[in-house]
């Protein structure tokens, strides 16, 4: 809320500057986000009176005016249409400066000299209003600096009370807070009312039908009211606090709200059927047209103010269009009520209608302050609208609201805070806050009666916070916990995730983080059948494109790949670790599985002038997968052809762990690639980290390094194309002598030099014994034997 420094000073005597006040509030728990000087840099703009308005001889749209500045008449050429002789206006004299450092000089406009300019509100930086010249009230003195007249010498503090501090949403509330911090007294406004002989009850009656939702309803009545423009001082205050002046009655209710924090409403009493005010819940389907011109359909949970026939206001939220005060109203009922915060909030939310009033009521207002606010408004109706205020207040308050009583223990304060605050210090803080209390010096405790404006205080801990913040958080020392040692577990998965990230980073991958929500569009593009999964949908998504909790990381990866390729990055290696949401679970609402996904498009290694660039392929991803499993200590795994439709049917593999498909890698299906318009081949993989992390281990066991040298022998086989490496390897391992420690593929050839239908795989064998150095003759014999078996049993030819 905007707090006027000048207004604040009507409530407390302080010499502190606005900035100092702002710092005190901030350090007391009411953050002041800005201190705004209302001085907009306007210089040499003064009040003046229009004496004569003539058409400009050479321009249809201009007028030629004589303007009296308090001392002399000056000639002004003006473009606005809304001025007439006798109007008082702001005049920017020759040499004047307007907001934005705009200088006003003598000018000749179509042959007529103009010695200055008449200003609109926009030209003075007051509002966006620029349809005409700003007209000042008739009683404005002439020749005065406009800064003084419009109170642009004020400073506004932008205070942001937390949601629990509804009591700080007014000048009074903030003054009270500052007074408590600075140990000052509050000055309350003096109210002098000259009531008429007739009692208010004679003109209007009040009945509360729902005492829970409206514990108290107070009203006053005024007749002979003249609705007109408010005096300048009131307009200035409202404008400086960000409100637009409307007319004196509306302005008065706004003014009292800003000042005392209690929302008021004014009815034109002639519009109330049978002069009755009934506070009741709405009938299901009942309608009201609110002040903003909209017709609202009501439910039976909403509280309304009604007359004998119809709702006339949405209680505490907004008045009705038909019963509000108009230009020609003369009799006014002023309402000052207390409504249940929860009910107001529900109504405002279900109608999507939030107002200043509902904002205050939701946060709780002061039930005792209600009468003060009503009287303050009545006095202003009397003073500023010539109203005759009827005798007395119609005050319906069937059951007095009870304030909580709380015990506060001094030792508890110090135990929570870790500081030595004395009983006397606590006492002073309670006193400064205006809390009533009794004390017990032997037990060092208080019984505190919470004042009605502090809805945030219900328990001892709430009072401890009050002591802490008013004593100052800076008074609490910084210590280090002495606590017991804590068992630290559970970091394993976190560490493994870091290991995976570092592994992929070393392999040249950039990590991405994509939104956890995707859209139907993504399912359509990837061909993942949304119906096949138990998808979790967001009931109130930002847009349809981000409305489904992802069931795969692939969508985010592909979208990102497309983004990067479209933005000129053709070498893309990206990965993401994150969760997918797979339908309902037991302990948590959804089954949230961790996944790892990666995508590559372009080369395996960043190409360079100095090395041959190899394009990424399925083998590249397979190698990465094996490397990853190795680094995570997983030795048991298998790959098998995949049937995952996101992937190319011939160029993809499933990773099988523990007999379970735990991931897929390979080339993106060309059909899916087409949906993304990828201009280059895309390879991707997605792995189930739940499975992988469950098998991962950091345990290692050392195997002794062979002491005796080994001997290598190579063997190139010509094989039918359909025979797989895996089959060959299995056979080779089976057929080889135990002295063969290692078999590895080292070359693959398929082409012209081979017989049609055949390919060549070349293997290398390492013969090595644990206990001796092998001799050539022995190895030759063993290897020849192996070659013989391979030819016989594998049907392979040796090349």
């Amino acid at each position, binding site marked *: 809320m905007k707090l006027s420094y000048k207004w604040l000073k009507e409530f407390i005597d302080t010499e502190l500057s606005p900035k100092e006040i702002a710092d005190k509030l901030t350090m007391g728990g009411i*953050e002041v986000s800005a201190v705004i000087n209302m001085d907009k840099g306007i210089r040499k703009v003064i009040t003046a009176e229009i004496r004569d308005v003539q058409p400009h001889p050479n321009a249809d749209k201009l007028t030629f005016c004589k303007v009296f500045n308090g001392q002399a008449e000056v000639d002004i050429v003006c473009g606005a249409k809304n001025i007439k002789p006798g109007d008082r206006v702001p005049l920017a004299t020759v040499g004047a400066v307007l907001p934005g450092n705009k200088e006003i000089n003598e000018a000749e406009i179509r042959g007529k000299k103009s010695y200055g300019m008449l200003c609109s509100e926009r030209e003075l930086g007051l509002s966006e209003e620029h349809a005409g010249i700003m007209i000042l009230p008739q009683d404005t003195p002439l020749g005065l600096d406009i800064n003084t007249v419009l109170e642009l010498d004020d400073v506004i503090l932008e205070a942001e009370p937390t*949601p629990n501090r509804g009591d700080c949403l007014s000048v009074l509330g903030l003054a009270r807070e500052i007074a408590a911090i600075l140990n000052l007294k509050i000055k309350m406004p003096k109210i002098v009312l000259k009531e008429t002989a007739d009692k208010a009850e004679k003109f209007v009656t009040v009945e509360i039908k729902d005492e829970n939702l409206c514990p108290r309803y107070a009203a006053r009545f005024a007749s002979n009211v003249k609705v007109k423009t408010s005096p300048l001082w009131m307009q200035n205050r409202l404008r400086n606090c960000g409100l637009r002046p409307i007319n004196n009655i509306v302005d008065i209710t706004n003014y009292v709200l800003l000042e005392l924090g209690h929302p008021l409403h004014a009815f034109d009493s002639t519009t109330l059927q049978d002069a009755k005010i009934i506070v009741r819940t709405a009938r299901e389907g009942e309608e009201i047209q609110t002040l903003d011109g909209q017709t609202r359909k009501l439910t039976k949970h909403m509280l309304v103010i009604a007359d004998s026939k119809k709702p006339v206001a949405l209680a505490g939220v907004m008045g009705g269009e038909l019963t509000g005060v108009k230009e020609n109203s003369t009799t006014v009922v002023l309402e000052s009520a207390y409504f249940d915060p929860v009910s107001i909030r529900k109504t405002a939310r279900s109608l999507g209608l939030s107002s200043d009033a509902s904002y205050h009521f939701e946060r709780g207002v002061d039930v005792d302050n209600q009468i003060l606010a009503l009287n303050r408004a009545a006095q202003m109706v009397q003073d500023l609208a010539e109203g005759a205020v009827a005798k007395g207040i119609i005050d319906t308050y069937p059951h007095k609201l009870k304030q909580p009583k709380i015990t506060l223990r001094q030792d508890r304060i110090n135990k929570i805070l870790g500081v030595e605050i004395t009983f006397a210090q606590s006492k002073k803080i309670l006193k400064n806050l205006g809390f009533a209390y009794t004390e017990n010096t032997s037990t060092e405790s208080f019984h505190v009666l919470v004042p009605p404006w502090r809805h945030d205080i219900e328990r001892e*801990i709430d009072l401890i916070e009050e002591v802490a913040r008013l004593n100052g*958080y800076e008074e609490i020392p910084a210590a280090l*916990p002495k606590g017991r040692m804590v068992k630290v577990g559970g970091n394993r998965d976190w560490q493994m995730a870091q290991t995976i990230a570092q592994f992929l980073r070393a392999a040249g991958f950039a990590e*991405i983080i994509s939104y956890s929500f995707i859209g139907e569009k993504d399912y359509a593009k990837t061909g993942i059948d949304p119906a096949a999964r138990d998808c979790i949908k967001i009931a109130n998504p930002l847009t349809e494109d981000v409305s489904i909790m992802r069931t795969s990381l692939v969508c985010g990866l592909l979208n990102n790949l497309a983004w990067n390729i479209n933005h000129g*990055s053709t070498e893309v*290696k990206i990965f993401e670790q994150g*969760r997918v949401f797979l339908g309902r679970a037991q302990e948590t609402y959804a089954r949230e599985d961790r996944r790892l996904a990666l995508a590559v498009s372009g080369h395996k*290694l960043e190409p360079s002038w100095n090395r041959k660039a190899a394009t990424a392929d399925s083998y590249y991803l397979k190698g990465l997968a094996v490397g990853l499993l190795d680094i995570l200590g997983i030795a048991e795994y298998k790959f098998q052809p995949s049937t995952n439709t996101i992937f190319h049917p011939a160029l993809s593999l499933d990773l099988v762990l523990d007999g379970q498909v735990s991931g897929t890698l390979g080339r993106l299906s060309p059909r899916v690639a087409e949906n993304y318009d990828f201009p280059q081949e895309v390879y991707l993989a997605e792995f189930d980290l739940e499975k992988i992390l469950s098998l991962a281990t950091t345990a290692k066991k050392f195997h002794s390094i062979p002491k005796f040298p080994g001997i290598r022998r190579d063997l190139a086989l010509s094989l039918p194309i359909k025979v797989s490496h895996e089959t060959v390897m299995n056979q080779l391992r089976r057929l080889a002598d135990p002295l063969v420690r290692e078999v590895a593929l080292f070359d693959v050839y398929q082409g012209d030099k081979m017989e049609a239908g055949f390919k060549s795989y070349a293997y290398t064998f390492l013969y090595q014994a644990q206990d001796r150095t092998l001799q050539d003759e022995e190895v030759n014999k063993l290897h020849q034997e192996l070659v013989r078996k391979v030819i016989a049993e594998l049907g392979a030819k040796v090349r």
Partner: protein
Amino acid sequence: MSLEDIRNKLAELEKQALGELEQAVKDNIENIRVKYLGKKGELTAILRGMADIAAAERPLIGKLSNDIKTRLEEKISGKFRELKEKSELTALSNLQVDLTLPGDPVGFGHLHPIHQTIEEIVAIFTRLNFAVVEGPEIETDYYNFEALNFPPEHPARDMQDTFFIEDKVLLRTHTSPVQVRVFEKQKPPVKIIVPGKVYRHDADVSHSPMFHQVEGFLVDEGVTFADLKGILTAFIKEMFGEQLSTRFRPSFFPFTEPSAEVDMSCFACKGAGCRVCKQSGWIEILGAGMIDPAVFKHVKYDPEKYTGFAFGMGVERIAMLKYAIDDISLFYENDLRFLKQF
């Protein structure tokens, strides 16, 4: 020839040979050797003149000539080595290569700046003996709000615009529900750090519908607000620099009381006031407080026996400050030109 003549001749020969050697190039060194030391060389010629010398003096001449021969041989081979090395070096240096060409790129990848920031935060707290726990991202109203002392229809809920899945089920708006989940399973002492994704129904230059928080909490007997100040001051100094000062000011969170906003002095202007800190000299970095007894009540901890503190921070905000990033959406565009800077 007299002995003296031969002696002079030999000295003359050595001098002449050395002079020639001085001027020699690699290819004529062998010629010099043959000319002076060869079988038909000049040294031999001189020695032939020994016939006139007395037999007793001959060994003297023999020694003299041998010495000269040894010296010359050494000089010649030395010169040869020198010339050879020189010509080899010249040959190597004359290789036409351009070493200004770029080196082979290592092709290292990049971790996401958000990830790096989280890891940095978590590492500091794990050094302080906090354990890492992660919780579900889809939560119930109970864990996200109710058990954290947000009553239904309380304006405090406005602070956190929520994505709903269904009635009472939502995307967690903060990492704090993990407090409740841990307390339900574990008795004090607990000392936990919770990194994770959170979601709010909001999107502009400084708000993303998905972002990251790190939450931490410690519950035991005798934990105080002073301990909270100690831990967080240590964290901020470690994370942002020893010279930074911190400021704790009262605030409000339903699940902590007393609550605090923690500011650090602006690293950009050292507290003088600048654009980064919006002229205040301070940067808001953390929310914290003593865990509200109402939270303990939900998990059946005795608030008279146990006290604790909790704190939370927005990772994006910290990363934006740290790397001077002005638009939060950059984190989720994942443009490689952005990622490669980290």
